[in-house]
């Protein structure tokens, strides 16, 4: 089938402001991903198209973008899912919102990773591990408590879909909260109080207005809004 692709283009070396690039591809299969068709544009028609990608199956988190208006990973979005009844499929691709565009579909990820680093996204336990040299024990139930948030691949689909983040980019954003949640609710970790203090601050969880865009955007199907709510609950009740 035929595909009409509109890509938001911006080359800081040439363009004063972003523009739309229009491309037509033939022989597109419904099983092709958006990454596949972007590659075809880049390889066959216009090598200047810039995007990040790596694993091509939804686990590395490189290629989050706005596809027909909704955040998703290009490699996990099949053309079949974007078909809208007509013979020619129309797909529009833009960079994710809320972060400066550096070129075409590439945005500046540094602010995103700065927020991530601000929530102590690492395991803290200063007591000596078991004397027998073995693992710390953890029950399957305790392990299950934070399973959902261990799936995060830091693709930024959630944070860049969040109106509260668009309104004020000092808000740490859903992804950083997900990362903090993964440790706050890990029975082995000892720094939950410090993390809760960070997240209880002006630019922490209370910026979340429970809009659910993050949950809808997550390509790993993490219940992001729930995770944020659990952190809010912990802050309110003091119970983890």
């Amino acid at each position, binding site marked *: 089938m035929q595909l009409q692709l509109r890509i938001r283009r911006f080359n800081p070396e040439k363009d004063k402001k972003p523009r739309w690039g229009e491309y037509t591809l033939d022989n597109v299969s419904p099983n092709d991903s958006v990454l596949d068709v972007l590659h075809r544009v880049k390889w066959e028609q216009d090598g200047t198209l810039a995007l990040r990608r790596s694993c091509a*199956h939804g*686990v*590395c988190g490189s290629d989050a973008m706005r596809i027909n208006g909704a955040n998703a990973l290009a490699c996990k979005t099949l053309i079949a899912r974007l078909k809208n009844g007509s013979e020619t499929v129309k797909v529009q691709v833009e960079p994710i919102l809320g972060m400066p565009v550096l070129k075409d579909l590439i945005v500046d990820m540094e602010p995103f990773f700065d927020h991530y680093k601000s929530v102590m996204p690492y395991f803290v336990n200063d007591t000596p591990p078991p004397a027998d040299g073995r693992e710390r024990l953890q029950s399957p139930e305790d392990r299950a408590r934070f399973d959902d948030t261990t799936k995060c691949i830091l693709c930024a689909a959630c944070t860049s879909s969040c109106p509260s983040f668009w309104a004020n980019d000092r808000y740490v954003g859903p992804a950083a909260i997900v990362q903090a949640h993964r440790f706050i609710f890990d029975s*082995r970790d000892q720094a939950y109080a410090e993390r809760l203090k960070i997240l209880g601050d002006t630019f922490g969880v209370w910026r979340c207005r429970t809009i659910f865009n993050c949950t809808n955007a997550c390509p790993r199907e993490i219940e992001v809004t729930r995770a944020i709510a659990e952190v809010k609950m912990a802050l309110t009740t003091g119970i983890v």
Partner: protein
Amino acid sequence: MAKVQTHTFDAVIVGAGGAGLMAALYASRKAKVAVISKLYPTRSHTGAAQGGIGAALGNIEEDHWEWHAYDTVKGSDYLADQDAVDVLCREAVETVIELEHMGLPFDRFPNGKISQRRFGGHTNNETGKPVMRACHAADRTGHMILQTLYQQCIKNNVAFYDEFHVVDLIRVGDTVRGVVAYEIATGEFHIFRSKAVHFATGGWGRCWEVTSNAHSLTGDGAAICLRRGVPMQDMEFFQFHPTGIFKLGVLITEGVRGEGGVLINSAGERFMEKYAPTIKDLASRDVVSRAIYLEIMAGRGIQGKNYVHLDITPATVNRYFELEGEKRRIDRAYIEAKLPDIADFTRTYLGVDPVQEPMPVQPTAHYAMGGIPTDVDGRVLLDAAKTVLPGLYAAGEAACVSVHGANRLGTNSLVDLVVFGRRSGVHMADYCQGSDLLPLPEGAADEVIADFERIRHSTGGVKPYIVRAGMQKAMTEGVGVFRTDETISTAIAQMAELRQAYQGVEVDDKGKRFNTDLLEAWELGCLLELAEVTAVSALARKESRGGHAREDYQERDDANWLKHTLCQRIDDGKYQLDYKPVTLGRYEPKKRVY
């Protein structure tokens, strides 16, 4: 020449996957270290590893690291160096415990210990039956290892240069002086001057058409070393994982078979019973990939096509459990809990629910057993006499210790990363303390900058993707699961033409910022050289062993070929082969039966 910024460190680590990050954690305790990666660290392909990391913890049943070592040596078809395998399997135990202490969220058994499951080729050495050795976090074990190591690097303030693409090694005689990197965002070149350089840049599965590997796995570090006079070891041994998603190549973990999944042909037969009567679907990967290929050749692919079914539906799995007198049973909830990503992949890409239907699979180019030759401390070796190049290190898939020999066992790539990442990091830090920073040669970046400018300004009119597709086709047809003198020779002739065509490669993007067009063209040059080395090494080895299966030399030939290949680049398209002995140990080579 262009303006080049210079940075100075004790050591630079190239690549931020499991091996690079583990090396960084250890090296940074004693030395000033920079990690330079063309990707953000969390994008590294370690994160795509699924099923588990092998370690004889014995958390659910009897196990010993020596059993793991025997399985690894047998799996390697006796080409692994047994002293290195002992290090791998002994240190696997303490390293997995260390990962847990770093916070890695392993799945747990009801008693709170790390959960383990079966994996291909891992056995109880007394009974020959599969043993539960693969420690796992659902089916995203690599993701959790990568995340945990990156988190620890943040905690320990490791210096990162993200989206800096290392494109050359500065070597003067038998010393290293640093690397040249291309800053992707700006197009500027940088020199990182250092006492030691560590390559942890992963594999080169993108040489083939169907691969589980990321687009970024273009073997840059190995190709750079090759160009700077380091031979490549055992390149003919490239692993084809038996279960890639049909056409896409996306990996379906061996953990599926570890949890009871079975391979089925068009006749509805569980065909692995014929090829590996004792451990059946859990035979090592080379054995299973060849079996699938032979079934397809015999017309027993599904619907006559070149794939078979991998069936984890509870009905099928429980039927076989019952036939074999196993007590355990699986259900939907178990599959969703233990294999959530696999279920997601097949639902997303195939519209197949693995709880209800079998998955179409075919072998997929997966893992380089060969690579940059090193010793057990990650030091790079220059020749058959094992001469060390002081200050140069490698670990992970880019390196060849050799612990995988002719065929790697499932889970052992993750073991390799953390064990040899750690050892090389420790050794490199000590090396830096006892050595001086040497001066940079004049114009250290000039040669590689000239290469880039040649590609940027070329008007040859050849599209890079055409050359890449040609290489992938040549390698798939000529140097795939099975190969012969004729198929490999054909591939070599095609590669020579492609090398010529590559000289005419022209890019559309002439700019500086995020010029991924230019970088992809440069990466293609790396792939072409590694593909050629692979084919040249494969042509010479007139036997079948592990992942190198020759239809014209079907038997393993220990009398003549129980040795490692070393392939040195002499000039463009000219290579010289040498060989070095395999280090044997407790396990005498014998016929491999599963």
